């Protein structure tokens, strides 16, 4: 294929392609951990997070990203979690956040210690 240099190029789209985000991992997560559907995105978990103060760890954003099929970056940031459970205490929807984080790790990063967690 001959690629002609027109003197410009197209930047890759920054949009989330929602049509293409059906993701077996998220469906599996919902089946295992229906709590994930309860999140109203208030950000309480992130506000109290001991790790989030110093890193990109953000459970609210992670849950939202997973539901949109954008999981690579956000799941990695969960590795900062120390399982202190403060998020569990403040969640207004009563989500068992600690259990949820472990389930996310089990499904999204098996073999990185997640499967044994």
């Amino acid at each position, binding site marked *: 294929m001959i690629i002609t240099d027109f003197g410009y190029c197209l930047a890759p789209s920054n949009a989330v392609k929602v049509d293409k985000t059906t993701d077996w991992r998220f469906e599996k997560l919902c089946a295992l951990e229906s709590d994930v559907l309860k999140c*109203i*995105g*208030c*950000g*309480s*978990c*992130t*506000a*109290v*997070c001991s790790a*989030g*103060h110093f890193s990109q760890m*953000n459970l*609210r*954003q992670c849950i939202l990203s997973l539901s949109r099929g954008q999981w690579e970056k956000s799941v990695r940031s969960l590795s900062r979690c120390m399982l202190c459970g403060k998020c569990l*205490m*403040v*969640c*207004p*929807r*009563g989500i068992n956040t600690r259990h949820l984080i472990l389930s996310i790790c089990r499904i999204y990063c098996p073999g990185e210690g997640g499967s044994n967690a």
Partner: protein
Amino acid sequence: MINKNIVIVGGGPAGLEAARTLRNAGLTPILLEGSDRLGGHLLEWDSLFPSNQKASEVLESLTADLEGIKWFTNSKVEEISRIKDIYLVRTSSGYTFQANAVLLTTGFSLFNATLKQELGYGIYDRVITNADMERYFATGEHPCIHEPKTIGFVHCVGSRDEKICNRACSKVCCATAIKQACHIKEKFPLAQVYCFYMDLRMFGRGWEDMYYNAQTKYGIRFVRGRVCEVSEGMDATLNIKAEDTLLGKPIRMKMDLLVLMSGIRPRKDTEDIASNLHIELGTDGFYSPRDPFIRTNESSNEGIFLAGTCTGPATLPETFSSARSAAARIIEYLESK
């Protein structure tokens, strides 16, 4: 029908409006109020959104003409029993009233904010509630309000929170917060005022305009995130933690004054009254109407009617409409007997 007795339990806005409507229709309702004054929560509020009309003016027009209404204060209902079609209502003042129909207008109670310990109400002096704020607006005095530079309003305290067993939205706190935020900004124009919200529910007529004015005219700053921890610094200022969820980052701030928007909860005696009268409660703890669309003023027990916030959070105009429709429904019921 003129000989028929109607007992109204609760002398707040709903009870007063229903009593007036029944009186205007030629009946002589009996209005029972447990406290020593008629008016309910209106007595504790300074002004009302969205027009900022004084609550006392509304109360005055409600109580201006009570002729033809037999009203009793300090008359808490202790027991309601039924003999055939007649209800017997016994009060703490020692009277027993006969009634062909009973209208419950028992209202709500504000959430006790000390139960959300992490927000520091009752622990730190500069954390106050919406009710305290109204008292301050009415009297101009509060020991901890001296030229605050930063003021925060925390929405959804005691509502939309499963940790205190209340999933429901209190419906009116968003508008109340914005009303109070604008009002305090008028008093302290140099202060920076923040509203911490989860979702802004400005569904009423004129409410969106309040929000618009709060943004543009008053410069109130809105942060989408829930305040979940408050602590006090050495200088008595408050340190708060939240996430700015639109920014996607945790935020930390110092506040000179924090106002918790306590939500609407069922009164403590709701459950007792419901079991006494065999009427059903919803999962939110408020009385359930017989049908949510048409028979909204009827309870599951014949002859017992409902109006106002004892059936769930409502604005004042909604409460008045509900009271008038209950009165109309009671008249229909008594005529059919």
